[in-house]
């Protein structure tokens, strides 16, 4: 909230012209719309059909019940008896990945839903939250609080309340996107509104953010971190701004270890900001390091004493040696894999993955592949989306070209944001390659969703490129297209689970 709140009047800040200070109402309305949108998604997506939702919801349940963090068990004895009964009652394992099957919607299964409270099944199990077991706890802390508050309710009512919290995080994320755009494009309220709405109503964002999944936490922390970085680079290094950056990086790492990939970008931003400040440089950098290190140190001590957890869990996925039966790790192949993950394969490269990943994996799945990747739009909707995105991107590129002289002054910012995006992309490719070596498949389009604030710059710049007369028209067009994709994705969701 401190980050997104406009500066108090009377305090002069560089690069913060007066008009945007009158926009807190718009920012809150945009956030409200994104919250309501994610909440609406959460009403119709069948329970646990946001990817990995059972693991994340059980993590919160176990944390709420015991105060301990889950641990992977040797025999994959996932979840607890009550949780397993709930999944079984809804035929969960028959429905995920099987678009022709439906959750149980008859009266018999409705009665089964009440079984947990009537028979008092065990809610703890052995503490194995499946794929979420090794996640850090920050996202689950408030979710566990919701679980505790709703302890006496039916299991699905508890999940519904956890989804309300998830929707609130989606709203906060969108608020940060709005503030981020406001920081980068001063004087363009329409552009901030359109960019933030395009992000907050984006169908995949609405779908993922509607469920219990620590991706929702990462979306928020990443958006807040990008905002904090923008403020640091635009307004200059102060202990407070530097501390915000450090604390948000730590919060990201404590939400999803993947956020470690943001560290180089944060380091670069601090160095660039420090270079411009003649004095107080050390105080600023110390504030950043302190604010980042303190929560990690506390978690590290708790992990070593009470929680029995390493500070950086999951890192072993990347650093571990080859497992039995796996292909050997080759650096040249890893580099080739990284390239092909995001760019079309070059003629001299061995074909390591099917199709053209930038389109078939990232673009299509970011436009919309829902459920446990088991339903999406009809085939024609994706090339149509590509055409629309290219038109909007061309508008944004035109604006950048026309203002290329000003871009040079922003080279530092651009480098920081590019490094942050690159860090995340490399982190995904490193894990993907390790998974590929063992015959698995890791990558999903949603893993790039934390970069949504950067993507929101594209529609915002496109609106800015239009003449004052046509800018509202362009803005309405972009928002209507986003809404159309969102509405039809939700109709597909109703048909998928209940039709």
């Amino acid at each position, binding site marked *: 909230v401190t980050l997104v709140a406009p500066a108090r009047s009377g305090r002069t800040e560089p690069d913060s012209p007066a008009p945007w200070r009158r926009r807190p109402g718009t920012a809150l309305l945009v956030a409200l719309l994104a919250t309501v949108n994610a909440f609406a998604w959460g009403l119709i997506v069948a*329970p646990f059909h946001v990817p990995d939702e059972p693991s994340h919801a059980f993590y919160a349940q176990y944390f709420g019940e015991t105060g301990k963090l889950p641990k992977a068990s040797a025999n994959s004895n996932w979840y607890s008896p009550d949780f397993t009964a709930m999944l079984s009652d809804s035929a969960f394992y028959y429905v995920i990945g099987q678009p022709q099957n439906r959750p149980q919607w008859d009266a018999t299964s409705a009665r089964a839903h009440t079984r947990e409270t009537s028979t008092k099944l065990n809610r703890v199990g052995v503490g194995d939250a499946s794929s979420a077991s090794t996640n850090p706890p920050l996202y689950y802390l408030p979710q566990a609080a919701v679980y505790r508050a709703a302890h006496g309710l039916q299991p699905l*009512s508890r999940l519904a309340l956890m989804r309300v919290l998830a929707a609130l995080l989606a709203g906060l994320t969108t608020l940060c996107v709005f503030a981020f755009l406001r920081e980068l494009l001063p004087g363009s309220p329409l552009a901030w509104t359109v960019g933030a709405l395009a992000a907050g109503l984006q169908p995949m964002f609405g779908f993922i953010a509607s469920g219990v999944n620590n991706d929702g936490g990462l979306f928020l922390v990443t958006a807040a971190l990008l905002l904090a970085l923008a403020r640091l680079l635009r307004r200059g290094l102060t202990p407070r701004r530097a501390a915000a950056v450090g604390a948000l990086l730590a919060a990201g790492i404590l939400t999803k270890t993947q956020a470690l990939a943001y560290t180089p970008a944060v380091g670069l931003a601090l160095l660039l900001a420090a270079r411009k400040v003649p004095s107080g440089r050390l105080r600023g950098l110390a504030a950043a390091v302190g604010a980042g290190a303190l929560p990690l140190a506390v978690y590290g001590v708790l992990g070593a004493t009470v929680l029995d957890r390493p500070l950086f869990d999951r890192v072993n996925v990347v650093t571990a040696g080859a497992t039995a039966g796996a292909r050997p790790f080759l650096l040249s192949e890893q580099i080739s894999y990284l390239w092909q993950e995001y760019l079309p394969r070059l003629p001299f490269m061995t074909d390591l993955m099917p199709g053209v990943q930038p389109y078939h994996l990232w673009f299509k799945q970011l436009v919309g592949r829902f459920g446990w990747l088991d339903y999406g739009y009809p085939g024609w909707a994706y090339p149509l989306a590509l055409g629309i995105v290219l038109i909007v991107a061309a508008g944004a590129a035109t604006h950048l070209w026309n203002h290329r002289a000003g871009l040079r002054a922003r080279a530092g910012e651009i480098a920081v944001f590019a490094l942050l995006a690159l860090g995340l992309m490399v982190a995904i490719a490193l894990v993907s390659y390790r998974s590929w070596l063992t015959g698995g498949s890791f990558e999903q389009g949603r893993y790039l969703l934390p970069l949504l604030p950067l993507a929101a710059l594209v529609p915002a710049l496109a609106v800015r490129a239009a003449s004052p007369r046509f800018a*509202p028209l362009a803005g309405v067009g972009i928002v209507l297209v986003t809404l159309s994709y969102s509405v039809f994705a939700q109709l597909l969701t109703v048909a998928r689970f209940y039709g």
Partner: protein
Amino acid sequence: VAVLGLLGLVVAVGIVGSGSRVHLQGTNDLRPFGFDVTIPAGKTACQPYENVPSGTGGVRVRAGTFGKPGPRVALSLEPAGSSPVRGGLAPGWREGDVTIPVTEVQGDRLGVRVCLTNHGPGQIALAGEPFAANFAARVGAQPEPGRARLEYMRPHADSWWGLLGTLADRVGTVRGALPGAATLYLWALLGLGVAGGAVALVLREGRE
């Protein structure tokens, strides 16, 4: 333009929702992984332990006829302790996803034995999943490699609008939380609010 755009979106939703088809009433949750049940001409395959939902008016199967026109088939749903529900198909149907109409089932029926008789000529293969012999479908006394996927269909085609009440009940049951059967209507209301609010907000910012 904004109003026209919003109206266009509403009209598009209206048109999509008015499309009519025969909807699912339930399934036995099996997946059509392979053709695990084969019924020779003149034989009957029976599959026990089926739960048939109330309002079923047909059973859809994925049936192969080895390229030939489908033979006459008879279907019976045999609940324990009550009279069977019958249906069938005249010869000449084409292989693929085939719905065999039956008399509409009144009330949920649990533990039903579903039997399909192939009156020939030619054999039929039904898609499903492999199962242990004690749960597999049987032709006579002989267990087949698995069970067939059965989809219980509504007796007639409905538009999505016509199905609205049923959809609302289903959403309420599956969600298992407040506001129950009103969930779908709340969702629609919120969706309208988001769409209208987003466009109104852009217009407001565009005017200033």
